[in-house]
């Protein structure tokens, strides 16, 4: 075994000397039609014409703002900056989430969080977070790369059991917990938002596949699509 056991981490000061970053508001404005990753699934029509009762309800929370926030928990200016802008602390306890009003933050890794906010607020939030934070940090707007699905109803958990190896029993998955795991041969950030409510953050490129998967997995319980 080598004597060198770990690389040296950049200090907060080293990170702070980085050049200014080019920022872009990814929203094209109201004149351009925005399409969610599930645009082709036409969930609005499914919601109108499909079943009205069933064991599983699926709703897409589309076109929200998704920001990946990265920084070290050792960097006080990073944690304080997030608190100042969000109004609550980043959840530093592994596998937990925090939310207030329209803002919700998921722990993804010890130095990574996923903030979801109303789509039109993402760019402003990104700017304010950058302003409030200093040191070796990163904020990336990934809004176009993923979408949010909500599974709810008495049989929502049964659909999860078919889809992920993660233990979704009450004793292991209380409300507010968040895990990133395998989901139907793809991957999802799974958060429990209520007794019968589960939130999935999925990748754009897998959205169509997961929509097909969820229809199949929910068929035996009856799937209700909500717009």
């Amino acid at each position, binding site marked *: *075994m*080598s*004597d*060198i*056991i*770990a690389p040296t981490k950049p200090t907060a000061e080293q990170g702070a000397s980085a050049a200014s970053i080019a920022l872009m508001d990814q929203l094209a404005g109201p004149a351009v039609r925005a399409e969610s990753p599930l645009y082709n699934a036409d969930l609005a029509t499914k919601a109108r014409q499909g079943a009205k009762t069933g064991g599983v309800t699926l709703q897409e929370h589309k076109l929200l703002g998704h920001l990946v926030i990265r920084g070290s928990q050792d960097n006080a200016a990073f944690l304080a900056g997030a608190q100042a802008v969000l109004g609550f602390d980043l959840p530093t306890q*592994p*596998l937990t989430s925090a939310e207030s009003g329209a803002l919700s933050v998921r722990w*993804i*890794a*010890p130095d*990574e969080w996923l903030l979801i906010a109303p789509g039109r607020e993402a760019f402003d939030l990104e700017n304010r977070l950058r302003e409030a934070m200093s040191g070796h940090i990163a904020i990336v707007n990934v809004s176009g790369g993923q979408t949010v699905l909500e599974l709810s109803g008495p049989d929502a958990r049964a659909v999860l059991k078919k889809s992920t*190896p*993660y233990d979704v029993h009450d004793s292991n998955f209380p409300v507010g917990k968040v*895990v*990133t*795991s*395998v989901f139907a041969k793809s*991957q999802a950030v799974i958060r429990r938002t209520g007794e019968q409510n589960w939130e999935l953050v999925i990748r754009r490129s897998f959205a169509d596949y997961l929509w097909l998967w969820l229809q199949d997995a929910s068929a035996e319980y009856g799937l209700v699509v909500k717009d």
Partner: protein
Amino acid sequence: MLLIYCPHCGEHRDEEEFHSKGQAHIARPLDPDNCTDKEWGEYLFFRKNPRGLHHELWIHATGCRKFFNVTRDTVSYEIKEVYKIGERPSVVATAS
């Protein structure tokens, strides 16, 4: 199917979420330009293949996407310990 403890997530997770990345604690030569071919070749290509305790680098690939180290018995597949990058293993082979 193994359950592997992720030291970053702080719980056991399904083997399916992890990937092994081979031998741990491989130090990159500090001055690559002045390595001999033998030194550079050994750094790039030569790995231990012990029968028994092995220190390996693993990644929680579909979870937190963080790397960590595992001391594993290559005979029984038993994971003896999991420790973070930067920490030293507490289970080490007595003779090598």
